[in-house]
Each structure stands twice: as C-alpha cells, then as structure tokens.
C-alpha cells in the first residue's frame, strides 16, 4: 500500500499516483478544497449547486455530448459535495482514461454557467432538497447540526437552506467557481493500471499550463466551546421515534480521532474506511438496546473532518417504547463506558475489524483513489496509509480516557424525532419494495 507518489505541479496542483494492475481500469479524481463549511449565510448550498453546474458542459465538451461520452466509453462518473470538499471522478477502462483527464482539465476552467441552465438547475436542486425533506431524519439532522454549530459552517446542511436556494444568483455561482476551481486548490489522484511516468507527463501536459489563482483565506469560523447540554425536538407525521445523541469529535488529523474510532467501534461497530461492510450485532449498544427490544436499530457515525465535528449515535425506537426509555437505556451504557468499563477484548476486536474493513475498502481503484484524495484534503494521504498502524497504537487506557473526555453530557446535543401520528392514514398497510 506504500507505492503512492506525490507531486506538486508548478501551478500548485497536488497529484497523487498509485499503480494497481489487478484489473484493466483506472480511476481519476479531482478534489477541490472547498465545501459547505466555507459557505456564508445567504450562499449556503453554493458548493453543491456549482457541482451540479459542472455537468452542464463546456465548449469543448457540450452538455449533451458530455452526458453520453463516459457511458459510451464504458466508464462511470459522478461527483460529491461534502462539508470539506467538492470532488469529481471518472473510473474508466484503462485504455480510455485520457478522456477523463481532458474532461476535468477543461471543466476546471471553462464551464459557462449559462443563465437558462442555472435556472433549470435551481428547481432540480430544490427538488433534491424536497426529496430529502421527505425523510423525517433529514429534519432531525438539520436541527442537530444547527444546534451544535452556532458559529462554524458545519451548522447548515450541505444542500443548503431553502431560502438561499431560491435567491442565489448565476453570478454568485460563477464567482464561487472562478474563485475556488483553481489548480492550486485541487488534489488530483489517479489509481489503476497505468505507467506512472507516462501518466504524470500527460497530467502535466493537460494541467500544468492552467494558471494558479490567488485564493482567499477560507471562510471557516471556529466554534466556541459548548457550555452545557443542548436539546432539540422535531415533530413530524409518522409513528416511528428516533433519538440522536451527538458528541463533539476532534478533527480527522487529531491524535484523539483514532481513540474515538476504537470507542465508536466498541459502541456500535466499525465505522472507519470500509466499516459499513461489517455487522454490529456484538457491539455494546446493539446488545443493550436492540437485543433487549428497546430499539429496532442503533448506528454510530464518526467522520474524519478538517475541523472538529460530531460523533453521533442514532437509535430507532421500537414500537411500544418511548424516547425517554430509549434515552435512559443509552445513557446507562454511556455512563458505564465513562466509568472505564471497556475491556481489552473489545479493543482488540475493534482493531481486527478495522483491518478487515480496511482491506475491503482498498480492493477497488475507485475506493482507493477516493480515500487518497479525501485524506490529502484533511491533512495528508498518509492518513489512509497509516490508518491501521495508528489504530494499533491505541491502548485500552487511551479509549477510556477518550470516553471520559468526549462523551461528556455537557458538550452534547440530544435530538428527539417525535412522531405525531399518521392522522387519517393510521390504518394504511405497510410494506417495502423488495424482490
């Protein structure tokens, strides 16, 4: 896993290369160091909207042609906007990756932001937000983040506030693009079946002449210390109650992050790279809440971010139990952990699970390229390479210390999603669409 090479082009663009010849495919990622955390009030959601506009094409790659050319070549492509970045990728049959290199070089400079296309995409994005609003959990997450971050940009959802989606202008979007889509604000990663010398030469040829821009200081205000528990309640139609408890977590490159990674694995199962591949039925909270029937599910979330964020525990409350009962059961378990009731065996299991899930996440070129780009953005790509070794250094004492420091009730946000019933549709018959 240590055959990554890093280069910084004369214009400041960071390039990471890693040859993997297991399959005849190559993945190409371009990540810009700009995300929703950098957005000001009035322009929330602008990073995500600009991401959508990047699919409107350029003079060299007109929209209708752009939409087809990757599919036609047997590739896959997409983009993602997060709190800390906006990223684009293409994964292609190895002999066709040049198309992706040329496309992203062009999109870095020449997207037009045609007013009519901005207008039609405004309603698409509003529709995307409305689709999210259909989920009760979206409302709860939005309220918890807003309560947790009064000052810092993590306080709003990545998709943005509806008020801003209705009022942002074409010029706002274009200025964001023109300001931040610069080579010196980009991390480019290529992983797959290629020759590194030839690939680097081609990247320099296509990107080396793109001029660097003067980047403004990123808008990111530090969140002041929280002095006491915060609680939010959201009432929505439905019959299912949810409880979320969010604690302050350190930035991804902080030494304590790895202690919390082990802690959350003990509580709710593995959450690191590839962690979703492993079930959590032996975890503390599954045994205490789901196996006792209090909850239908319990999940944990710890996400490596540039600035301190949140470690969240989410409980789906079972029929017949109340939010108060679920919260009391959860709190009882957290208190045990705060008192140091964690075993060496649990810590050892967390490390073993991390090793396996990490192996799963590094088998495909798309996943590897993503993680390298992601980690370079939060500090260094070596975060990914050193992940298992750093986790191995975490001791039981470290985990206990982290539990005491980070699971403090005084610095948490507790959210309740209170279902208000089904109204006239109480008698509806439920099922799911599965075959």
């Amino acid at each position, binding site marked *: 896993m240590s055959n990554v090479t890093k280069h910084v082009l004369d214009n400041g663009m960071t390039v990471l290369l890693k040859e993997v010849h297991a*399959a005849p495919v190559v993945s190409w990622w371009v990540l810009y160091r700009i995300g929703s955390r950098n957005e000001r009030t009035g322009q929330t959601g602008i990073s995500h909207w600009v991401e959508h506009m990047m699919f409107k094409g350029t003079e060299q790659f007109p929209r209708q042609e752009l939409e087809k050319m990757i599919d036609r070549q047997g590739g896959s492509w997409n983009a993602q906007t997060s709190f800390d970045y906006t990223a684009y990728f293409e994964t292609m049959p190895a002999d066709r990756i040049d198309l992706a290199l040329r496309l992203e070089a062009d999109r870095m400079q020449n997207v037009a932001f045609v007013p009519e296309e901005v207008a039609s995409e405004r*309603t698409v994005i509003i*529709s995307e937000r409305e689709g999210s609003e259909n989920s009760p959990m979206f409302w709860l997450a939005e309220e918890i983040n807003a309560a947790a971050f009064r000052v810092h940009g993590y306080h709003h959802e990545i998709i943005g506030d509806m008020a801003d989606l209705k009022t942002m202008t074409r010029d706002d979007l274009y200025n964001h693009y023109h300001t931040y889509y610069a080579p010196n604000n980009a991390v480019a990663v290529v992983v797959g079946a290629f020759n590194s010398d030839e690939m680097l030469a081609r990247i320099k040829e296509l990107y080396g002449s793109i001029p660097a821009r003067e980047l403004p200081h990123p808008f990111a205000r530090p969140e002041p210390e929280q002095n006491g528990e915060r609680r939010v309640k959201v009432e929505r139609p439905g019959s299912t109650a949810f409880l979320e408890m969010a604690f302050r977590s350190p930035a991804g490159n902080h030494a304590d992050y790895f202690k919390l990674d082990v802690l959350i694995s003990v509580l709710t199962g593995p959450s690191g790279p590839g962690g979703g591949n*492993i*079930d959590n039925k*032996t975890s503390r909270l599954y045994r205490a809440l789901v*196996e006792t029937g209090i909850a239908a599910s319990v999940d944990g979330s710890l996400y490596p971010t540039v600035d301190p964020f949140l470690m969240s525990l989410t409980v789906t409350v079972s029929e017949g139990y109340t939010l108060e009962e679920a919260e009391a059961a959860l709190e009882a378990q957290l208190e045990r952990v705060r008192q140091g009731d964690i075993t060496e065996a649990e810590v050892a299991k967390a490390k*073993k699970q991390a090793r*396996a899930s990490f192996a799963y996440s590094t088998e495909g070129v798309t996943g590897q390229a993503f993680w390298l780009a992601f980690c370079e953005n939060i500090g260094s790509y070596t975060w990914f390479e050193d992940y298992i070794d750093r986790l191995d250094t975490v001791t039981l004492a470290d985990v206990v210390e982290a539990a005491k420091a980070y699971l403090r009730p005084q610095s948490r946000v507790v959210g309740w999603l209170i279902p208000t019933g089904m109204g006239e549709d109480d008698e509806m018959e439920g*099922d799911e669409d599965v075959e």
Partner: protein
Amino acid sequence: MLNNTVLRSMPNPETITRAELPNGITVLAYENPDAKSVVLSGGLDCGGAINERPEHNGLAVMTAGALMRGTQNHDFQSLAASLEDVGADFGVSAGIHGVSFGGKALGEDLALLVDVMAEVLCRPTFPTDHIELLRREALTWMKYGLQDTRRQASKAFREALYDASHPYHYSPRGTLETLPGLSAAMLQAFHAQQYGPQGMTVVVVGNVRAAEVVALIQAKLGDWANPTQPVWSAVPSAPQVDELRRSFVPIPGKSQSDVILGVVGPSRKSEDFQAARMANSILGEFGMMGRVGENVRVKGGMAYYAYSKLEGGHGPGGWSIAAGVNPVNVDHAIELSVKEVRRMTEEFVTEEEISDNKSYFTGRMPLQLESNEGVAGTILSMMEYDLGLDYLVRMPDIINRLTREDVMEVIRRYWRPDAYVVSVAGPQA
C-alpha cells in the same frame, strides 16, 4: 468495443471452476489472487415468498431473517461473534422466488464463511425470543415505511399492475396484519419443508484456491438432504395492462411526491429481454437518465431523479418510469414521460442511440467485474438465468446484433401510451 485481451480476461468456462455435488449443489469458484478478501454468494431454488400463502405473507422473509438468530451449535451472540471478531459478514434473505445468501471475509477465513453458511442453512433453531425481536423490528420499519412516498408509490403500483392471484401483487415483507400471526413453529416448518440442496448454487470469488473451495463445501454440505424439498415454482404469466389505471396515496406533510408509471415487462429469460434492456436504457438510463431524464430533469428542471427501470428477473416483472417531483409537477412529469414512450412506439430511435448503447453495455464490463462482489454476482446471475458460463464472452455479439427495429418492436410489444399503471404517493397538490 472491448479488445480481445480484455474479453479473454473475463470470467469464462476455462477460468471458473465448476463442481456438481451428488446432492444437487453446484459450486463455482473463481480465483482472484490480487484480492485480500473472499466473497461467497449463492442461492436456493426455494424458500421464497412464492411458496407461502397470502395469509402468511412475510413467512419466507422472516424465516430467512431468523436463520442467523441461532443454530444447534451457536446461539445468536456466538454466531455473530464468530464473524464480527474477524471482520467477516454473512447474511441470508428471501425474495419472491427463492433465498439468497452471501458474505465476505479475509481470504484466510473462507472456512469460517462456509461453516456459518452450512450452520444457518441446515441447522437453525428459531429461538422464540429472537423471533419476537425480529417481528418487533419488522413492524417498526414497516410503520416507518408508511410515511415513505417511494415505498408507498411502489406498493400501489405493484398492486395495480398485478391482481391478487399473482405473487407479484404482494411484498415478500408481509403486512402489519400478517406478521403478528407468524409463529416460530411456522418458521421452523417452512424451513424444514423448503430449504434443501437441490438447485442450490454457491459462488466463491477471491484470494482462494478453487480446489479448496470445492472440498470445503463438499465437507460441510455434501451430506445435506431434504426429501420434502419442493421443485422450483415457475412464476405465472401476468396479463398486460389494457387501460389507464391511476392511483393516489395521500401522505400529508411531505415536500415531494413520488410517481411510478409502467407496464408488465419481460422476464430475464425472455427472448425480448436484451432488446428491452436496450430500449429501457435509451428511455431512461443512458447518459443523464436517458430521454426521460433529459426531458423531466434537464430540460424540465422538475426532478432530481427521473429514470426508467426494467426488472427482468424470473418472471414478468415491471417495466417502469419513476420520478420524485414537487406535487404541482406530477401531471407534467407523467405527461413528458408518456410522450417519450409514445415517441419510441412511433419513431425509430436514432442510429447514434443504438451505437452509444452498444458501447455502453459492452464497454462497462471491466468496471462491473473489478470487485469480487461484481464477479460473484455476475457468475451467480449466469447460473440463475441459464445464461451459460461463456455468457460474458458471447454478450458483445448478442448486443451488437440488436437493431433499432428490434427496439421499436419490443417497445410496441410491452407499452401502449394509453394503457399503463400510474401511482402517485405524496401530499395533495
């Protein structure tokens, strides 16, 4: 187009090891020494919801879900611990037609995956307390689903497309009415009658040796027998829609409505399938969700998602168009979607669309086969639908023979712009 080197690197009869065990189990192994992990994936020919009575709707899914809750040699926690302690995973689920199972582990833990597979399929104990937990969880999620516009539109669509005599009318998950009536004894009896080795397929892909795979499965499952196991249940055909059927599920308080409109489509084994797959891609998949996406999302600005989907599968599954739109745009989205269906029944698609989609279907094969999961799923699918283990090698020729006449013919055979089911779930406009 794929070059010959890439084509030869695809899983094929020379690189897939196949073994038939005397009790009816087919084992397929594909070695991928570059991977650290191993993926096991498989299915049983029976144990699906098609074998349950309507009043016991949900029995097959609950039976499959209960298998991991305890076996003769492991209680729930020790079974889970055996997997989770080494970062492995294994699960079993039932659908309409049969049972699917699968898991993943580091290559060195293949024996554990095979052990767990044999334990849960052959020797489950159906502990009563865990059946109650499963039921409680299922009812909680089912009630949550009542507020889900996509699920409710999908349910209304399914019930309008297939009448109550057809198995596709029902969700295999069961209903709020049927789940409380399912007992541990009923699950045990269903398992005893349905689960058996005849027609079972196990695919193993990853950092393993094929001979070791076959030997392990022979050792753990070679003695499994079930004389009562029923033969494969063929899915009945379903009459095509001959009128416009529209239904609305009111769900107050939502921001968006979900719309599904469609008809009965061909099965995966139908001679029409490949042409239908290409027609579907042109209609609502290729590029930015095909013609439907171009009109409803890109030009209309009405939806984040607007696409078409061909179920395929073992029976006459649905062929549908789905979109999530603001309630005021529901009728316009339906109108634009049907307009594209009508256009495809009246005008040939372009030669460029045919050519683009041929490249799309054949060109994406290396990406689909990059992961162990992708290879295992593809091999299992080749077995399930009798495609032959040389299917990937033959597939480019099959696709490249398709013409725009084939596309028009298949659209006309399945779609009528004045006869389809449309279901909407969401708030009143």
